[in-house]
């Protein structure tokens, strides 16, 4: 597939989004209106900008990544529109902002290469930790940047400019910073980590001093996240870290240790926090606690079951019955309205995105870029698994967004920057 067919596929995916919006309108008795055209236009501008930036700043990048991402954003967008036209209007603005930020990232990286990121890894770490700390700013002070607590978790910041407010979840960008830092650090210390190790029985462990900075970085971010009670992001970053460590060293002991630490952490969180406990109850017995803890998961499952093979049709189901349908439960909402056909398609597109991301990693010769591409893809894949698995009761619900599909500005910006980074690596590694 070349650049031209990539462009054509982007236009086709944008048409798909606009068509789905039109179907929602028809279902509610209206016809093709400004919303349909506006959606098509915003999709064209958003991904046209990204496409143009790729042509200008990363021309040798794979053409296989943007089209499936457009399809995912489109499938998520029509469902957001169906649930709340107001949210969809905001989401359109966020799409434009995200495309601008991602294009800016491509432009800046074209001035050097991604190795700039490696060089400034410590700066990135400090910025990342700073980002993670932002939601703990006081909510009531006079400064325009305030922290915000939502549903018992402190993961939002508000930029209050008096006339308008912008809310942002810094963890969505922080996850990228963490992956960049981990990749750079592991690339720098890869040899030492791999060769200097101690044997404890059959398990090989690196020299403790090699791990101190990593454990500090990890412990610090986990501490902040537990402090902010954002279980999902905490789990996501730890999983990304462990998988990268394994990728860099090939020591399966890290996976075992990481798995044990995750279980311990989860058990500790469940005993320490009420809201984690409620999620365990909802996970294990949603129908027994239908009226309270289990309501959301039960509604999600009813939505999927009622959707059945072909779904109710866009706009014709009742996904609005699911609490937080536009964010955490967008997958169930989509499953209700476009059915098993739609959910299988969504999973297949995610599989394609993951395959392209890992393909970029496989073909990279540079260790840092290889680890970065793998790490970014892993973090995204783990996020997809955690939230869809949460909806499907495979794992407890952790309350994170579904990449590209959920409503949410910070998530969209973070994930399009993730795509931009993958594209840039792809460009740098193809000759």
């Amino acid at each position: 597939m070349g650049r031209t067919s990539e462009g054509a596929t982007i236009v086709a995916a944008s048409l798909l989004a606009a068509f789905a919006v039109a179907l929602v309108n028809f279902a509610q008795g209206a016809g093709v209106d400004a919303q349909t055209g506006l959606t098509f236009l915003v999709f064209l501008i958003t991904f046209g900008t990204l496409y143009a930036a790729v042509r200008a700043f990363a021309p040798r990048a794979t053409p296989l990544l943007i089209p499936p991402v457009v399809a995912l954003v489109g499938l998520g967008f029509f469902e957001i529109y169906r649930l709340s036209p107001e949210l969809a209007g905001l989401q359109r603005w966020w799409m434009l902002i995200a495309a601008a930020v991602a294009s800016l990232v491509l432009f800046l990286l074209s001035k050097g290469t991604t190795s700039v990121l490696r060089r400034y890894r410590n700066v990135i770490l400090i910025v990342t930790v700073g980002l993670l700390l932002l939601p703990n700013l006081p909510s009531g002070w006079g400064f325009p940047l305030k922290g915000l607590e939502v549903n018992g978790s402190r993961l939002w910041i508000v930029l209050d400019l008096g006339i308008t407010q912008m809310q942002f979840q810094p963890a969505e960008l922080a996850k990228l910073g963490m992956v960049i830092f981990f990749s750079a650090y592991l690339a720098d210390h890869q040899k030492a980590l791999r060769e200097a190790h101690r044997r404890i029985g059959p398990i090989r462990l690196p020299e403790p001093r090699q791990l101190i900075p990593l454990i500090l970085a990890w412990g610090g971010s986990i501490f902040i996240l537990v402090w902010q009670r954002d279980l999902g992001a905490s789990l996501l970053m730890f999983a990304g870290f462990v998988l990268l460590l394994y990728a860099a060293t090939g020591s399966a002991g890290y996976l075992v240790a990481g798995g044990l630490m995750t279980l311990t952490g989860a058990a500790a969180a469940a005993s320490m926090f009420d809201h984690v406990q409620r999620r365990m109850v909802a996970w294990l017995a949603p129908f027994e606690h239908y009226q309270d803890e289990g309501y959301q998961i039960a509604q999600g499952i009813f939505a999927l079951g009622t959707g059945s093979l072909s779904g109710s049709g866009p706009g014709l189901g009742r996904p609005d019955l699911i609490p937080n349908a536009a964010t955490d439960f967008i997958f169930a909402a989509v499953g209700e309205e476009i059915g098993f056909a739609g959910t299988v398609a969504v999973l297949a597109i995610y599989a394609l995105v993951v395959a392209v991301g890992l393909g970029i990693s496989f073909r990279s010769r540079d260790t840092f870029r290889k680890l970065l591409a793998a790490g970014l893809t892993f973090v995204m894949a783990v996020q997809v698994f955690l939230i869809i698995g949460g909806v499907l009761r495979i794992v407890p619900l952790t309350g994170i967004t579904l990449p590209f599909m959920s409503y949410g500005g910070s998530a969209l910006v973070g994930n399009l920057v993730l795509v931009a980074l993958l594209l840039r690596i792809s460009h740098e590694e193809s000759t």
Partner: protein
Amino acid sequence: MNGPIRRVAIGVFLCLSLLLAGVTWYQVVRADELRADPRNPRPALAERGKERGLIVTTDGTVLARSVEDPTTRSFDREYPEGESFAHLVGYSSFLVGSTGLEDAYASVLRSRRDLTISDLVAALLGQDLRPQSIEVTVDAELQRAAAQALGANRGAIVALDPSTGAVLASVSNPSFDPELLLGDDAASQWELLLADDAEPTRDRATLELYAPGSTFKTVVATAALDTGTAGPGTTFDDPVEFDLPGSDATIANANGGVCNDGVSATMLQAFVRSCNTIFADLAIQLGAVDIGISAEAMGFNQDIGYEWPVPDAVWDTGSLIDDPAALGQSGIGERDVRATPLHMAMVAAAVANDGVAVRPYAVGRIFDADGNSVEETEPSELGRAMSLETATTLTQMMERVVTEGTGRQAAVPGVRVAGKTGTATGTSEFPNPWFIGFAPVDDPTIAIAVFIEGSATSGESASGGSSAAPIASQLIEVWLSP
């Protein structure tokens, strides 16, 4: 380094396969079960707020309509006639299900826009997808009068056009406001209705079986006349109590005395005065089989094919063949004989219609959103219930009931009314008064069954002649008044 990444990649794809298994489980394997789960409000909600067709009477009285809310653009169902029509019209509630015509004609009344693939095909073929409406044969004025006539009594009234079977009135009392069951609090309203001892949600007119009492003597008389076993002038012994053969039990008359002079009485006298002694005797002489033939010719033990499934009226020939005592009791409409008020109205209609039983129906016409008929109901016969001669004789006997017998209070000045009273005692603490009849005798336009379920309201001394017959008189007068 590609080695470990590849292994993680395998893990990632295994996880994605797990998600695929998850959606297959919920959307394919368990889909039907989840859709039907009573806690899943979606299937019922899908119907809520959609436009439904009108239910109107022939004279244009609106019984059910959908009104659009201009802000939400969803439709609210209204039942302007309320309680009087609640059991006939029924309701369509997203929380407690649907009943009556709303349920029976759900597929006609529903909007066919945007629901199924077949609707889409229909739309492409240029078919009209707007909801269709139904026109019921009920006379709104008669229906209201019937509901009012029952007053505080529990009971039911069914009136039919004897020549077509068209339902002119079908009332069950006490009733309820069906609009209570349409809102978000429908479930709790439903619980309140269920907790009411008077059981207002039961349709006593078509869905409940009762012992027909002496009104069943019309069926026994039919069998006697059709088989030639007895005629109006045939005489019977006239004891104070009739000894049921093969048992110690006896049957007495309602007044506790003899029927005529204590020596003998004719079948006509026994019918007009509703003498139990003689009809028990006659039933045993006829035998379970011959009565059964007449009963089944009038639709007993079979599906009469009403608008919705109704219980079959019961005459159990098999168990009565070798049990003359039970046969004697069954001959006066007690023991295990059962019929709905709808069915007994049909029996009266068969006599009125020269002996031909007709299938009762309530919907005369289905029409589209432009008012054009889509389907008109063709009246259909159940079959000949008795010979023309028998019908003529029985009519004369029934007229005598009203002019000089137990049904005198059913009389209407200037109108020839025929009828038969009944006071069933079998099952409840209080007697259950009945009256079935028709008018005018020379060209019947209405056949009616009035049933009162015995309760403290109707009292211990209520009888068909004193409680049900006056109501029939009143309603026949309403029906025949210009």
